[in-house]
């Protein structure tokens, strides 16, 4: 069965199907219940499944996640929403030191099957805290899966897989493209967690991008007079380096495109791994086109911060001409 939906509709569909599928699943967060979420991600769910399973919480992120850990340890499968990724930091201790740690702490006796959803990323002219790209912080916290879809199909399938996973997942939804386009979503399609997607094949260079940057990558690949292979890791951690390295060995050149600031952004990890495993195949150093090392600015300067297709093209040109 397949129907056309955009990213946020895909989130809603995935939540609905998981609530239906597994009575241990709970969906909750600020404004998630009666209001259906500020982005309408949980629209209609409370009406369908009741307040016991879909509900709103007080404005208290560490409590939202902390209680989630507790519920998970007791056998539930909570799917809390943190309204904006910039507020995840308030719950960081609960996420890293507890949710991510329980399996190891208990030598495998206890598990935390929790999926934390948060809209992330910039490009929507919003205020402080509302356009953060925190994937690096969570990738660095051992014990967590970090997943970032870039299409409605991946959003639907990977969110369901994340909820079904018996370990904690931080599921970051690129809100800039929540409603940018619709595509056919096949609910039965099997999409592997921890596997990257080749967005388009090419032979001149590998461009690794995720979230809203995948569309920027596609635009840049069209603009430039070269055959670019685009790889979307989808699961930031654990990363499918096999796909990425195979691609880089084929093309000989690599570039990473991400919104988050350059220093210690996830591009740094990817570049290092490529260095370790494919240095003899490289014809140029790995290029990174990213946000600058500054806090995400107010909207008047937003266009200078967000990597766009012009900057991606420039990066590709430098990469190809090395």
């Amino acid at each position, binding site marked *: 069965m397949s129907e056309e939906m955009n990213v946020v509709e895909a989130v809603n569909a995935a939540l609905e199907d998981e609530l239906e599928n597994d009575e241990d699943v709970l969906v909750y967060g600020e404004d998630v219940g009666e209001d259906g979420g*500020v982005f309408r991600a949980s629209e209609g769910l409370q009406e369908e499944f009741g307040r016991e399973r879909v509900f709103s919480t007080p404005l208290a992120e560490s409590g939202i996640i902390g209680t989630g850990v507790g519920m998970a340890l007791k056998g539930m499968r909570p799917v809390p929403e943190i309204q904006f990724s910039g507020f995840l930091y308030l719950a960081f201790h609960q996420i890293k030191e507890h949710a991510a740690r329980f399996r190891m702490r208990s030598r495998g006796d206890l598990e935390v099957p929790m999926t934390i959803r948060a809209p992330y990323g910039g490009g929507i002219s*919003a205020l402080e805290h*509302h*356009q953060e790209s925190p994937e690096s912080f969570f990738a660095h916290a051992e014990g967590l899966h970090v997943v970032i879809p870039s299409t409605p199909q991946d959003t639907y399938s990977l969110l369901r897989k994340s909820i079904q996973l018996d370990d904690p997942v931080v599921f970051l939804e690129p809100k*800039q493209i929540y409603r940018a386009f619709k595509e056919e979503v096949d609910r039965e399609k099997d999409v592997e967690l921890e596997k990257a997607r080749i967005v388009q094949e090419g032979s001149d260079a590998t461009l690794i991008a995720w979230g809203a940057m995948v569309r920027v990558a596609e635009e840049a690949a069209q603009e430039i007079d070269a055959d670019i292979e685009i790889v979307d890791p989808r699961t930031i951690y654990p990363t499918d380096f096999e796909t990425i390295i195979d691609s880089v060995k084929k093309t000989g050149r690599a570039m990473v495109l991400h919104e988050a600031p350059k220093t210690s952004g996830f591009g740094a990890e990817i570049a290092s791994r490529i260095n370790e495993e494919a240095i003899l195949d490289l014809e140029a150093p790995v290029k990174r086109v990213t946000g600058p090392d500054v806090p995400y600015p107010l909207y008047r300067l937003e266009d200078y911060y967000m990597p766009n297709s012009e900057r991606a093209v420039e990066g590709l040109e430098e990469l190809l001409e090395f």
Partner: protein
Amino acid sequence: MVVGDITTGADLVVIGAGPGGYTAAIRGAQKGLDVVLVEKEKVGGVCLNHGCIPAKALIHAAGFRKDMDHWDEIGIHPGDVEVHFDEVQEWKDKAVERLDNGILNILDHHGVEYMEGTARFLDSNTIRVEEEHNAENVEFDKAIIATGSQPIEIPGLEFEKDGVISSREVLELDEVPDEIVVVGGGYIGMEAVTKFCKFGSNVKVVEARDRVLGMFEEEIVNSIQETSDMYNDEIYTNAMADSVEYKDDGKPVLVADQEGEELKLEGDHILVAAGRETRPVLENLSLENTDVDINDDGFIETDEQMKTSDDSIFCIGDAAGEPLLAHKAYREGRVAAEVAAGKPAAFDNQYIPAVMYTDPEVATVGLNETEAREEYDELLVGRFPMSASGRALSVNKTSGYVKVIADNDEKLLGVQIVGERASDMIAEATLALEMNAYLDDIANTIHAHPTFPEALADACEAAKDESIHSY
């Protein structure tokens, strides 16, 4: 949206939910496109809310009122009849609301996203929609401009002045005016005459040219003037409206210049119905950010597929040019949406009918006799008076005639109908013309009896000098 400005993507954006716009939106959705429809006022646009539909509703009510005066002839004596105009307006408003909701339901059924706000172009693939508490961008593959037109404002008689109203306000009046001055003897003005006269108003018409209803043949205008005193008494031709003055009690007085002489006409309102224009509406669309050109007449030029000079933008309805008729917009909306969906559609229509709801009604399609004589040396003309129609007699509506014009090979060129059901009868004539019919195609088709459309068949026979029911 709570925080932030998230762009929506769509296959097709339609700006304006009037007849052209909502049709295009629904057809686009039927063809599988993802459609966003933006409207700044009400769905249905001018036609459903401030034009065609409410006007016809009021004319219908007025018709009842007028008819009652003749019931005595039939033998029905209603006695004193009261008209509560506010109730009439209420009924009319409900009918309009029902129609609007019907459209909204259909839009919803087809998954069209309906946005209430004002749109303007940021570039050839993006619009910005400003809603009440929110503004957002919509990126599109194709867009259709269906922004319609607005009444022309006459300098000296601006709508903001007290007592000066447009066709929109005249439909909202709470009471039947005792006297009303109409500037403009076109069909909107004359329809206004029709409805208010029937409710008992004294209507005065001021027309700049030498006769009213210049777009119709003199024969037609003479016919309706002969039939009804409504269109005779206070019609001032060759009179240019200048300005408005006010009496002591605040009532407006129109000051006009009739061939050098000053003419003053007072009324409860001055209705300015001097035509419609598109330019002011188009200027709000920020079209300079696109490749769309506006021509000297204030319209957007389009080709047969309704495409403008910008490859991703179409234009339909009044914004695309004459004639400013809803049914042209209806057809253009379908064409544009189908082309946007990749189908081979085109506006290849050869005939657009025109209908006027005077009393009797007038409807024409194709060439009139004057025009036909200019193009063709020989013609066949058939005229059938409605007084010879059994059906017309049976409903006591015998004024008017049907005239059919054909070339020497008997191929139809045009039809003019004046009479009770002219607006309905013209449909058959339009179909016949579009299908390249000959006189025999209509004459030899059996028309049910007794009906009004029989008169069309009779008129075709008359064109061959073979009319059974007339001389």
